[in-house]
């Protein structure tokens, strides 16, 4: 790879551009759509030349949707807030429960540890709908249906196995002698976990947290069944754009853009830790 000719560089540039175009085009198109009215979106042939308007965003933020059939209340902003709260809280709970568990599974080989870890992973195998039916009944009986608490609990089905299995691998990659050295130096196991294992696994924890957040954010079916209107996340709330007078493409596009932003911001922020993790190669001494 040391000697790349100009032609090779040019070809590589073209190839990368093609890939980026291919993957980014739908998002680019949606961003364009979010600045158009339904009429300009639906004209044939479509064009990228139009008078940009921010009325879609205004409608979402003020919560009033003006359509040809009259005005309509939408609570997109509260959906967005629900998504943010549900995802953050689920990831927080998932990290608090999952990281120590991952450490236990990674470091202490106890009887049945492998089986328990696998059982936790197997939650991801079951189709959510299959789980949901009995869960809905139980939740209604014990009063957890349509509560944030109940939703966060159910979200652990998505978040916990993911965090557990990713972080466990990072803990296993830390040479045991580094922790042994800290113990022998006179520190308790808990202080060793906190001061040595946690900082060294931090890139893994950041990656797992980010992934878990995205998975929780994008979840649809749990919230659809278990949450009522005031606790719905954006994924479910977007259904409101399908109105009696047609689908509000402009608002849908603006909603998509707004709901991408938090995850995008988080990914950009967490990227630092992910890259740092890759350059922390001196662990082996």
């Amino acid at each position, binding site marked *: 790879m040391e000697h790349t000719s100009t032609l090779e560089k040019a070809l590589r540039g073209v190839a990368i551009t093609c890939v980026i175009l291919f993957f980014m085009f739908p998002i680019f198109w949606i961003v364009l759509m979010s600045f158009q009215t339904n009429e300009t979106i639906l004209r044939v042939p479509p064009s990228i030349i139009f008078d940009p308007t921010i009325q879609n965003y205004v409608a979402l933020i003020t919560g009033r949707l003006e359509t040809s059939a009259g005005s309509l209340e939408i609570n997109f902003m509260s959906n967005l807030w629900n998504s943010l709260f549900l995802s953050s809280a689920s990831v927080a709970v998932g990290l608090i429960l999952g990281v120590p568990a991952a450490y236990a599974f990674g470091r202490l080989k106890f009887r049945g540890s492998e089986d328990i870890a696998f059982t936790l992973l197997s939650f991801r195998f079951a189709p959510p709908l299959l789980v949901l039916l009995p869960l809905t009944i139980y939740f209604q009986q014990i009063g957890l249906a349509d509560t944030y608490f109940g939703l966060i609990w159910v979200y652990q089905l998505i978040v916990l196995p993911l965090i557990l299995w990713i972080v466990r691998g990072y803990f296993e990659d830390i*040479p045991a*002698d*580094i922790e*042994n*050295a*800290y*113990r*022998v*130096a*006179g*520190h*308790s*196991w808990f*202080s060793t976990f906190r001061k*040595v294992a946690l*900082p*060294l696994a931090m890139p893994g924890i950041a990656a797992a947290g980010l992934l878990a957040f995205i998975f929780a954010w994008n979840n649809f079916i749990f919230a659809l069944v278990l949450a009522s209107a005031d606790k719905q996340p954006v994924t479910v709330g977007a259904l409101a754009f399908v109105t009696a007078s047609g689908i509000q493409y402009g608002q849908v596009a603006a909603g998509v853009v707004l709901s991408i932003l938090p995850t995008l911001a988080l990914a950009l922020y967490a990227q630092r830790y992910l890259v740092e993790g890759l350059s*922390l*190669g*001196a*662990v*082996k*001494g």
Partner: protein
Amino acid sequence: MSIELSNIRKSFKDNVVLEDLSLEVATGETLVLFGPSGAGKTVLLRLIAGVVDPDEGSIRLGGQDMAGVEPEDRGIGMAFQNFALFPHMDAHANIASPLEARRSSAQEIDGRVEDVSQLLKIDHVLHHKPKELSNGQKQRTALGRALVAQPSILLLDDPLRNVDAKLRFEMRLELPRLLSSQNATVIYVTQDYKEAMALCDRIAVMSDRGIAQIGTPEEIYLTPKTIAIARLFGDPSINLLDVTPEAGEEGPYVRLSGAKVPIRNGYGQAIGKDCVLGVRPESIRFVDAAAAGAVPVTIEAETPLNEKTVTLAVTARNREILISRPATTPGPDSNDAHIVLEPDGVLLFDRETGARVETEPATAAGEAA
């Protein structure tokens, strides 16, 4: 603090690493654990440090049974073979970690870290992270971390293994001084016999899940228990020749190149048995053809090694013998030379078991005097 291990057994799954191992190290003594890789040296250190627990047997430090005592409560300083530095902390924090655990004041920590790092000549790199340190600096940082809290027991797991030859040589000279200044009981693991002989009061040779021989460096060098141990020490290594001692008028002798080479009277019990004769290269001298017990040999090659010259010679039956002599002394004139074995340097081993044949008591007492 003294270290006492009794009847230790340790296995990992089905692999038994240590079996019925007992060992005592007196307070202030430096003991070297020596042996080929896989002999269980590192496991033994880990058992003492409390990082792993024995299946059977007891470990007593300073007379106290260590069963159930966590590593952090044993008051041990340990340097790991692969350094095991904390990659997210700089050298200063690495060295300071045992002091932090003892809740020393910040001022005291800085002072102690400063002292130790000056002693080890790493005071100029204290603010570097481990990945910015050279191997030698890493090794010194690891050593500093082990020494800084002045533990009464020091476990050093082959600390010079991963450093370059020059530094290893320097440290081999420095370490004995450093260790004696610590007043600690030291167990030092190494695979380098020169390091072993330079550093310690006693050497414990490990093989086959236990300690094969324990003694002073001289004892192990001059009277190894088995052929295997004899091979481990000495460079160039010991000459081993198959012989069958015979009875002569003046005592037992062996035949080499047709010549009768007398061996010590104490070896009378070995007469007629299949044996292996072991003789160190420096216990062989070149002599004139007329000398008593002279063995004719043909010289194949000579290798000067600074302070000594090593000669490779073959006997009439094409058996190779290495002869070592101080570099300044003259060698043989021609390729056809004669050698004589110094009787005190001749060891006999049982060819079947590999165990050294003891000289008979009467003579042995005379030799010891």
